[in-house]
């Protein structure tokens, strides 16, 4: 069972909610619960979890390397490459590793077997534990443009049949799709502002496009206006919970003890999320 936490807009509270939800689940369950940080460009979940990182795995992608002794300058690699990652300059192929999508096409098409692949490091996957909560997160190397392969490496740590919470990156394009695809439920965290609404609509369209069920959590409730609420009602989207707008919450967030604060004060919100995600047997401390 994979429960993803996403949002179109950044800064709505995805990570906070994902971490609090996973912590809550691990509190009421004895078995192992997993939280995967798929926001590999800016991974923040462990800032709140504070697990000591026990495993680090370097993640590589294959990129082409040309053996110039063999190359006959035919240019077929350049013709095939859709990303301008291998380009003929003065009848010699030049590789641009940052543009490469690792499709392997150039190597396959080369008639003289002049192209082989070498590994390029794109980031790391880290892992840590707090009791029965297991954290796995990715972290791209600086200037690494393409993050989906690293997200894939994080997603490989999903243990089939176990309960997993995924903290997705903001936006609605490839890194988000790679993070949430295959989820059983997507919780969209938004705020009741015009930006929040605009980006929520995009996120709803995205999960509809992929065909994933989901619901909305309104964070900073009371701020802004009622448009998010009206939009959800008019479109039959369930609002699974609300966390009020409160400067005290913002201060707890800044200080880094937000998760404890939320679980002390808004436990019912997390019960409601579990209820909506078809995990009602876990809600209310598993007592229902």
């Amino acid at each position: 069972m994979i429960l993803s936490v996403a949002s179109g807009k950044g800064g709505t509270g995805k990570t906070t909610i994902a971490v609090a939800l996973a912590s809550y689940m691990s509190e009421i369950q004895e078995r192992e619960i997993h939280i995967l940080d798929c926001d590999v460009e800016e991974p923040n979940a462990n800032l709140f979890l504070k697990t000591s990182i026990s495993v680090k795995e370097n993640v590589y992608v294959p990129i082409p390397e040309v053996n110039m002794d063999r190359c006959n300058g035919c240019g077929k690699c350049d013709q095939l490459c859709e990303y301008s990652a291998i380009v003929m300059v003065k009848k010699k192929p030049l590789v641009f590793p940052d543009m490469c999508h690792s499709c392997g096409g150039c190597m396959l098409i080369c008639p003289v077997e002049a192209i082989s692949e070498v590994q390029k490091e794109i980031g790391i996957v880290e892992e840590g534990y707090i009791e029965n909560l297991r954290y796995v997160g990715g972290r791209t190397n600086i200037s690494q443009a393409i993050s989906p392969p690293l997200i894939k490496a994080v997603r490989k740590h999903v243990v089939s049949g176990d309960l997993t919470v995924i903290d997705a990156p903001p936006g609605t394009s490839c890194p988000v799709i790679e993070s949430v695809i295959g989820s059983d439920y997507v919780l969209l965290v938004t705020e009741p502002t015009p930006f929040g609404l605009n980006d929520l609509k995009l996120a709803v369209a995205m999960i509809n496009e992929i065909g994933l069920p989901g619901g909305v959590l309104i964070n900073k409730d009371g701020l802004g206006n009622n448009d998010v609420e009206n939009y959800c009602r008019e479109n039959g989207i369930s609002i699974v919970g609300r966390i009020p707008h409160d400067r005290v919450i913002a201060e707890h967030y800044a200080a880094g003890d937000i998760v404890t604060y939320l679980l002390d004060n808004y436990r019912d919100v997390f019960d409601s999320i579990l209820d909506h995600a078809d995990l009602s047997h876990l809600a209310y401390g598993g007592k229902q």
Partner: protein
Amino acid sequence: MKELVIISGKGGTGKTSIAASFAMLAKDMVMADCDVDAADLHLLLGPVIQEEGEFVGGKVAEIRQDFCMRCGQCVSVCRFDAITDGYSFDVNPLLCEGCSVCSYFCPYNAIIMNHEISGNWFISNTRYGPMVHAKLGIAAENSGKMVSLVREKAKLIAEEKGFDLLIVDGAPGIGCPVIASITGASHVLVVTEPTLSGIHDLKRVIELSEHFRIPLSICINKYDIHEENTEEIVSFADTKGIDVAGKIPYDTDFVMSQVEAKSIVEYSDGAASKEIRSLWEKIIGTI
């Protein structure tokens, strides 16, 4: 021409609100919304579209079932698991990277590559000047390419009009759309906040800007929600020799101005508004 790019690493720190305020304070500038994934600037600037076009990002494979002999070659060459072998061989467009490898190696020429319309771009007028913006299609790829397109169009307009300033509202993160936004820019303004995530993400975005050798300034939004963290950012910036050009207080005007579809400086003359004005003076002096 000067190009100021506003980014943040972490989302939701106030990039777009500050960008919209700068649009009002600047004279003779062109705006570009390069957060093409979740564009919001139009909500504050109310653009009236003058010209628009389709953005063709990448390609998507299509298997012509009449020609398919079910040899399975496509499945074995696809590294993105984008072809499923079920009742028929089918392409999952969400997983297809458009690399064309399957199409090249299909012995029966059964696979064609279709250009995919990944979104739309717009050139608009706003009450503060011209604006170039875009809408990436749902679940589309190539946001980096689209960002480059928006920046190019914005530069052309600035040249045509003889304006020498381009203000770019960037995306969160440090990946492809952000790299495409800052490459070759004159100056980066990082909007951060004194939270653990804010500080963590600020450091990554500074590293990125340094990697591309782009001068930068920092602005701390909601600086008063955690003064100690604010101090930490200031001293970190000091050690790096980076200017903290502004400290904006926590102010619900950020939201109230959004609701009124205005920039903060247009909406009120409150504490945040005043600080953004002085931030602008500093930034325009720096670049």
